[in-house]
């Protein structure tokens, strides 16, 4: 059999289609090999795109292909329409403008926090159809199965003349997107801040990239993970003390992921003070799947932390990271290499604990950040906040959680195995006295309104192992039936209506069994929970702790 017959045209349609599109683009003015002039980008997109194409417009948690997003809103809808957008984050107005303008009509995504209200509105107006709301890993997975992009529009920091890319500290989703597109006869267009003679390092090789355009402005990056310690409350300090003493120390948690927020920032800032006093250094919190939170600086400087792998980066942390390559993953050039797909996998399979917050939790322990009129998506929380049922390596924390959950159970449910610690840390009332504990999640009504197959639950109740509020810790691993579980949650729900409906006698019994532990049961006096325990109380303290290497974005500089 000759090579020609193996490559029969009926088996190479995608490749031929790709070459046709590249030829159309190559004939345009302003396109010189791989290099495209900024003024020619709209024409380039019109030449490359065909109605119905699956398109990934790189919108990450932090880094945005904003110039290409703007260009996509400028293509002629009579030429380019009904695009199927497959992108992890909807962050910029342009990400929804393409639907309003009739350029795109279908959407598969993960997170839409900043655009959640408008997304719900457009869906209500019938301007788009949502395939599904995914986790990051799940969407990346589908890039390699049934949602492979035909054209991907991505962002990098620098390119060289051949089209090699340096993505810099905010690599984020780029490798996953490019791999799926380039190896399935798709087309990759990159916007870069600058074209340079020599790259600091190669993050994406040139033969996976078809076009490069230097954007008039650097790609937008959001400092999403910076929390000003000045805004951490005494109640958050109290809850952080309970997390450290009542969970981290109790299970000997070595590897972990923290959600974003002031609650978890308080834990990070208490390690070198309260944690040190409890003699926990070296016994907990050694390995992290976490973005480079500035709040982590004091613990790193005090020698608590051995390694941090990151989903993305954080503005202002670049020089600090460069100076701490023993802790962070850095390239030969010295700068951070982040990777959302690998860090999500690390958080899911290699971490003993996830701790995060939520807007609502029901009496089964299901939690959701979806509220009426807002379709916010999940991001990575469901993968971080779920037991990894494929995990097989043991650790002390994982084994202890598994024992607590299975002790005394018959049959297959009693088969010895470990379990991931999934902690939901919430004050009983959020701001404006909104109760965090509710009988029914808004997610149910939202599912009805948006005609979703399932209510958008972020973390399922049967994955949650501990609920931590200012009232105490409910250990759901020790609950043996639904009623115990419900009363354990009500027992830490404080003065919310759901909390006031508790069965006091049963809550007392659960407390006697150690299912519910109050601060006093943990040897914690709430009056000791003062801001003086924070290793840094201001942004300036963080800068000082970093030896001047951390440079906060201007909006966080209040001195």
């Amino acid at each position: 059999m000759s090579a020609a017959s193996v490559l029969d045209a009926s088996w190479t349609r995608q490749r031929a289609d790709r070459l046709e599109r590249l030829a159309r683009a190559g004939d345009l003015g302003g396109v010189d090999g791989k290099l495209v002039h900024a003024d020619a980008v709209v024409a380039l997109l019109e030449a490359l795109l065909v109605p119905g194409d699956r398109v990934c417009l790189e919108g990450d948690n932090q880094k945005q292909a904003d110039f290409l997003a703007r260009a996509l809103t400028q293509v002629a809808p009579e030429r380019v329409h009904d695009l199927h957008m497959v992108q992890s984050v909807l962050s910029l107005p342009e990400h929804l403008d393409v639907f309003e303008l009739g350029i795109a009509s279908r959407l598969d995504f993960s997170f839409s926090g900043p655009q959640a209200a408008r997304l719900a509105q457009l869906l209500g107006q019938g301007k788009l159809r949502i395939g599904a709301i995914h986790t990051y890993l799940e969407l990346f997975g589908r890039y390699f199965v049934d949602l492979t992009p035909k054209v991907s529009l991505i962002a990098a920091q620098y390119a060289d003349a051949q089209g090699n890319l340096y993505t810099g500290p905010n690599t984020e989703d780029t490798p996953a997107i490019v791999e799926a597109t380039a190896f399935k006869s798709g087309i990759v267009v990159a916007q870069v801040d600058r074209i340079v003679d020599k790259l600091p390092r190669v993050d994406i090789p040139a033969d996976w990239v078809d076009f490069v355009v230097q954007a008039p402005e650097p790609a937008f990056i959001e400092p999403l993970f910076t929390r000003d310690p000045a805004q951490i409350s005494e109640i958050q300090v109290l809850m952080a003390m309970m997390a450290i003493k009542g969970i981290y120390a109790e299970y000997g948690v070595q590897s972990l992921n923290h959600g974003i927020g002031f609650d978890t920032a308080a834990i990070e800032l208490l390690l070198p003070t309260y944690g040190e006093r409890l003699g926990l250094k070296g016994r907990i919190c050694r390995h992290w799947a976490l973005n480079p939170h500035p709040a982590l600086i004091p613990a790193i400087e005090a020698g608590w932390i051995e390694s941090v792998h990151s989903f993305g980066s954080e503005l202002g942390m670049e020089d600090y990271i460069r100076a701490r390559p023993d802790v962070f993953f850095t390239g030969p050039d010295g700068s951070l290499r982040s990777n959302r797909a690998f860090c999500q996998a690390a958080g899911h399979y290699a971490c003993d604990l996830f701790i995060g917050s939520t807007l609502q939790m029901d009496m089964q322990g299901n939690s959701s950040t979806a509220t009426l009129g807002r379709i916010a998506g999940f991001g990575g929380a469901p993968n971080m906040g779920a037991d990894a049922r494929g995990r097989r390596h043991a650790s002390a924390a994982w084994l202890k959680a598994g024992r607590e959950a299975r002790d005394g159970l018959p049959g297959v449910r009693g088969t010895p195995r470990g379990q991931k610690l999934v902690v939901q840390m919430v004050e009983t009332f959020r701001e404006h006295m909104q109760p965090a504990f509710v009988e029914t999640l808004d997610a149910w009504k939202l599912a009805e309104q948006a005609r979703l197959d399932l209510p958008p639950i972020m973390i399922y109740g049967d994955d949650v192992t501990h609920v931590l509020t200012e009232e105490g810790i409910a250990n759901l691993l020790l609950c043996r039936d639904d009623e115990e579980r419900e009363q354990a949650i009500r027992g830490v729900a404080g003065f919310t209506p759901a909390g006031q409906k508790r069965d006091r006698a049963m809550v007392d019994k659960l407390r006697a069994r150690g299912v519910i532990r109050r601060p006093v049961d943990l040897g914690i006096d709430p009056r000791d929970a003062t801001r003086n325990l924070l290793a840094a109380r201001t942004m300036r303290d963080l800068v000082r702790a970093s030896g001047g290497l951390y440079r906060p974005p201007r909006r966080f500089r209040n001195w």
Partner: protein
Amino acid sequence: MAGMETLRFTFDGGRALGPFAPTLVGVVASGNLEVLVEPAAAPGCHVDIDTSARGFGGIWEAVLRDFHARHGVAGLTLSIHDMGATPAVVSLRLDQAMAAIAGATP
């Protein structure tokens, strides 16, 4: 003050505290409160609240009932100036006030 709500509660029972110096805890700031504790001749535990958050009388009553059950004190008046503190902050300030009184009483 415009928009403020005034609430008043009395809880019976408990042991009389005896003489103590009036004690002030907390600050009047968003999400916080100030509580002044003074001795009272009448038995029971009296609470006067000025709050910027209207419509939470039921929660105040539950928080204060818990406080009274926790400390079992009588012969005092609590004057609270609240700027939308959560129940957690209210309970913390009340406990701090009781600790300050205990610390100052021989």
